[in-house]
């Protein structure tokens, strides 16, 4: 198990790219210098789809457990806080699912114990699946897929935004690049080819490690709707969100998602992502 975000790191080293000795490091630097030229050429030739694919392929660990705090800021400045425990596991296409995520609400008290379970499909013919556990009803209820366009816990991201659209559900075009704070970014436009509440999305993807710095969401009239800024936890080759700051420019509503207490490699299993896990609730 590895703890990140100011906590101890006890990893077995498998998922961190650490060069063990100076000789290897020197040799590696020489090789890297040669490869960088090739890489730059390769990157220059990358298509929008390939760039987005790279951004999707970032290693996030085999599983994660974290605390996600949502700060919802209204246009009048009033704020509301929601604290959730998030469990996530990369299913790598097993049983047709790319990943599964479950959220358990810890705060506010009237939502305590409410659970959301999301199965992200890896099959374009299948729809994502979503379940909701309401302690007040003592029942797990399946939620319709159309509901995925609903705001996630009243925030500025939808359930669908919290999961991930399949690559082929959008047409991705490299429309330019930009240097920000001395770092280069591809600018890719993703236009939906299947049903979406958005007209398009514009993504700023790092040329260095393919992390996404910013996403602009446009409505169906192609007017700017939301701007999402992302900061990352970088640990070896692992890339995990640290904070998402999403502003709806049309309503002036804003949500800040902060990830803390991140642990990876915690050994989450199928049962954690089932109705059984939902009804059990979160347990340390």
């Amino acid at each position, binding site marked *: 198990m590895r703890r990140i975000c100011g906590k101890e790191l006890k990893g077995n080293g498998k998922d961190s790219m650490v060069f063990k000795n100076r000789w290897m490091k020197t040799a590696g630097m020489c090789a890297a210098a040669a490869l960088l030229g090739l890489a730059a050429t390769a990157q220059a030739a990358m298509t929008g789809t390939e760039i987005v694919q790279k951004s999707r392929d970032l290693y996030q660990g085999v599983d994660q457990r974290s605390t996600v705090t949502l700060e919802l800021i*209204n246009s009048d400045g*009033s704020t*509301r806080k929601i604290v959730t425990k998030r469990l996530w596991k990369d299913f790598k296409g097993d049983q047709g699912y790319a990943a599964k995520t479950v959220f358990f609400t810890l705060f*506010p*008290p*009237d939502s305590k114990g409410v659970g959301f379970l999301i199965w992200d499909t890896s099959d374009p013919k299948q729809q994502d699946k979503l379940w909701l556990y309401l302690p007040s*009803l*003592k*029942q797990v209820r399946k939620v319709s897929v159309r509901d995925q366009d609903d705001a996630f816990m009243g925030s500025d991201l939808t359930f669908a935004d919290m999961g991930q659209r399949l690559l082929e559900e959008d047409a991705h075009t490299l429309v330019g690049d930009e240097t920000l704070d001395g770092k280069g970014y591809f600018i890719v436009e993703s236009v939906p080819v299947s049903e979406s509440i958005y007209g398009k999305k514009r993504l700023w993807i790092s040329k260095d490690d393919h992390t996404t710095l910013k996403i602009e969401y446009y409505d169906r009239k192609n007017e700017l709707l939301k701007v999402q800024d992302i900061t990352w936890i970088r640990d070896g080759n692992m890339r995990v969100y640290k904070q998402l700051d999403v502003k709806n420019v049309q309503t002036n509503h804003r949500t800040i998602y902060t990830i803390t207490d991140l642990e990876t490699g915690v050994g989450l299993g199928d049962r954690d992502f089932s109705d059984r896990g939902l009804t059990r609730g979160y347990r340390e």
Partner: protein
Amino acid sequence: MCPGRWVLAGVAGLLAGLWLAATPAGAAVSGRLQQELAVRVSGQPLPTKGLSFLQLEGTGALGPGSYMVIGRVFYDGVLDAADPYEINPNLAPGDPLDPDYFAGAELKEAYADFLGDRADVRVGRQIVRWGLLEGARITDRVNPLDFREFLFRDVEDRYIPLWMVRADVYPAWGHLQWLAIPDLRFHKPAPAGSEWQEFELPSDLRRPRRSPRNTEWGAKAAWQMGEVAASASYFYTWDDFPAAYRSIFGVGGQLTGVSFDARYERLEIFGVTLSRTARGMVLSLEGAYDRGKRLATDAAAGVPGNEVERDVARYGAGVDVNVAGVDVSVLYIQEQIVRFESYIPVNRVERGASLMLREQFLNDRLEAELLGLYFATGRQYILRPKLAYKLTDHVKCAVGLDLLGGQRGVPPDAAGGARDFRFVGYFKDHDRVTATVAYRF
């Protein structure tokens, strides 16, 4: 009402709170302080509820498992503001009020969980819900109901928790659940003094003793068939409504007496559910077959004991969909008596439908909700519009209307059902405005 009773209840609640607060590290206490008001608006406005309660919920580790305890102390001060004979016109002068209705302390749930790799066990007083169609009570009949406030309380108050053992096993193909319920409790009618008093249990009602032989048993299997989630269940239970057998004594053709033997009878319930997601909708089907239901008969039919045994089929379909941001749930249910006879004084087929609309506004602080229920017999209906607003993360208030209508009918007598009984329409003059403030911690 004896004031000492609710003082005692308060002390019991305080002690429970202290006990919970003093539990070892790892334990957590949360709870709710709630005030509920209701004013009848059919005719002259009349306060009918002034309920206050403190609920404490304690959780923590218990060896390899965990525990949950939920207790409550409550007091309804409506009698300080209104005459009980006005609140409940059916209450005859001199009829005693049920003090437990107005104040008391109650243990709601108390159970321990033991969680394994492939199986979980929950032992204690708990609520188990089967079924898919919310409120339909087709297969969802493990716990009996408390009608103290008709159908208007939340699940945690409407369902009577039972002491039981529940085991869940998770084989690769799905989920198996097994229940053993030695705690025999039955539907609880609204007591004397409640505005929702509708029918009474016979005073000489015989209840089955708690014993291994009388224990209720249930089993449910759930599995996935492609896109369809399916379940099948069996519940060997006691009918939550008693049967009232009548014996007539006569000598030489002259009637000399009538005696009633009211008792609960065994019932078997076979259930099945199916659900799937399609085109942005969740479609649900649910059916149950009750074997061994006792039904009252017309006295003139001369049926021995005045009761016949029949099977009853219940089934329903539901759709959940989001339309323009509004959550919509539509439900249709039907109940049919198998081998119906004209001397059974109820309808062979009963039909009902419900509609629920829900939408959130103002940064999710405001929630608007409308529940409509319709019963074809007697064109009875309930309409419940409600607005709930979160003042802070801890404080929520709500206002609503409970509107009831349809044919009024007459309540069943102690001997059994009445042909003109109208469960909802009977309260057609009980429309009310409600208000709730809850502080959660």
